[in-house]
């Protein structure tokens, strides 16, 4: 017994080293799977507070640029208002508005912290559980899609942007074209890669890429980017396509969290079908 004790005293530093190292590695591994160990991340109270204070200060430097962007977006939205359409038909049948049920709701949020030069980047936003944000919701910006909510706290949330190794979204060429999977290779933050487009299809540089219809996180036909280059590898059946992202992550500061009001219903239905198999 005394031997064991003296051994412990003698090698206490080494034992402590192994202990701390193992617990760090456990944290690293746990974080690879979604939604675990959510207690240490940038949506936690202290770090979110520090980022918010800093951001409020820095924000003044970019006010004019940001104002212009918001004004542009406002103008665009005004164009889409019902009042800005001219009714060309005289004999129109009155359609009750209850035909259209609200499917998506948007929660505006401010970016309080963002990284773009890591392999796994994150965005922290200033809306959380109390404002109706939930995990796995989609996030879009004024120029296109941004990412997916990973962790939430009461008033903050972290987002996995396109610029993350685990990010995948189904993307479609044009509004009716074929579907592929969009991911990011960890290089330039302005470009992402589209996989799964078969080579027999004709594609053109400059074509626009939109979100697909079967993703529940984003509304259909939200812009992702444009094709900047592609190559056809001879012993592969798919194209390698580079996408120039429409969202500029270097200057992003306001985003919208997408709340799909029918998501629970869809999820329940799909789970049901899985049990049946």
């Amino acid at each position: 017994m005394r031997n064991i004790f003296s051994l412990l005293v003698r090698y206490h530093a080494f034992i402590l080293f192994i202990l701390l190292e193992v617990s760090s590695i456990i944290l690293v591994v746990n974080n690879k799977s979604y939604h675990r160990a959510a207690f240490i991340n940038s949506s936690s109270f202290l770090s979110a507070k520090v980022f918010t204070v800093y951001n409020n200060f820095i924000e003044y430097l970019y006010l004019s640029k940001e104002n212009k962007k918001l004004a542009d977006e406002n103008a665009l939205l005004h164009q889409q208002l019902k009042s800005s359409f001219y009714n060309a038909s005289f004999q129109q049948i009155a359609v009750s508005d209850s035909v259209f049920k609200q499917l998506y709701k948007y929660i505006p949020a401010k970016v309080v912290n963002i990284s773009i030069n890591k392999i796994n980047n994150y965005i922290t936003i200033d809306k959380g559980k109390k404002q109706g944000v939930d995990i796995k919701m989609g996030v879009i910006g004024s120029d296109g899609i941004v990412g997916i909510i990973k962790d939430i706290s009461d008033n903050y949330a972290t987002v996995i942007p396109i610029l993350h190794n685990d990010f995948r979204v189904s993307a479609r060429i044009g509004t009716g074209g074929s579907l592929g999977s969009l991911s990011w290779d960890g290089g330039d933050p302005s470009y992402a890669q589209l996989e799964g487009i078969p080579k027999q299809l004709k594609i053109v540089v400059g074509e626009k890429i939109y979100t697909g219809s079967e993703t529940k996180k984003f509304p259909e036909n939200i812009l992702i980017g444009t094709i900047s280059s592609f190559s056809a590898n001879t012993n592969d059946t798919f194209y390698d396509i580079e996408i120039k992202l429409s969202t500029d992550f270097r200057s992003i500061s306001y985003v919208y969290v997408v709340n799909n009001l029918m998501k629970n219903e869809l999820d329940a239905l799909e789970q049901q079908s899985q049990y049946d198999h």
Partner: protein
Amino acid sequence: MIIDFFYQLIRFVLLVLIQVLILNNLQLPGIFNPYIYPLFLLLLPIRMPQGLLLIIGFVTGLTIDTFSNTMGMHAAACVLLCFMRPQVLSVIGPSGGYEQTDKPTLAHMGFRWFAIYTSILIVIHHLFFFFLETLEFRQFGFMILKILLSTSLSLLLIFLTESFFIKRKSR
């Protein structure tokens, strides 16, 4: 003693803030990821007990992890740095051992000693950190370049910071 403790605390807060608010947000190409906060661990007193050193390293790493969403990666790298620190100190130390008043700073120990000390430990820290970050990553050539460039930039920043204090003292 208490004054020294406060110095260390202020240094900790300043370096962490510089790291998470400025360096993590630098609009540099993705290949440059400098880390200056390990300087805090390098400048802790030479005779600090190793157990305490390891715990401080772990806490420092976790603090940075909290701010940069890296979850345990910085903690692991810092714990390794703190474990290696006494070994490195004893290898490069003067033959008669360190004096009671010695501090591991550029101003006190001179350029050559500090260069060796910092380079060895920062390389260990960065290699391990980028190794953990890379585990599941595809482009290895890019990563090696990233390690080289980021490490050089970190070392440069640490030297600049330290030499700033030399000038202030000699005036």
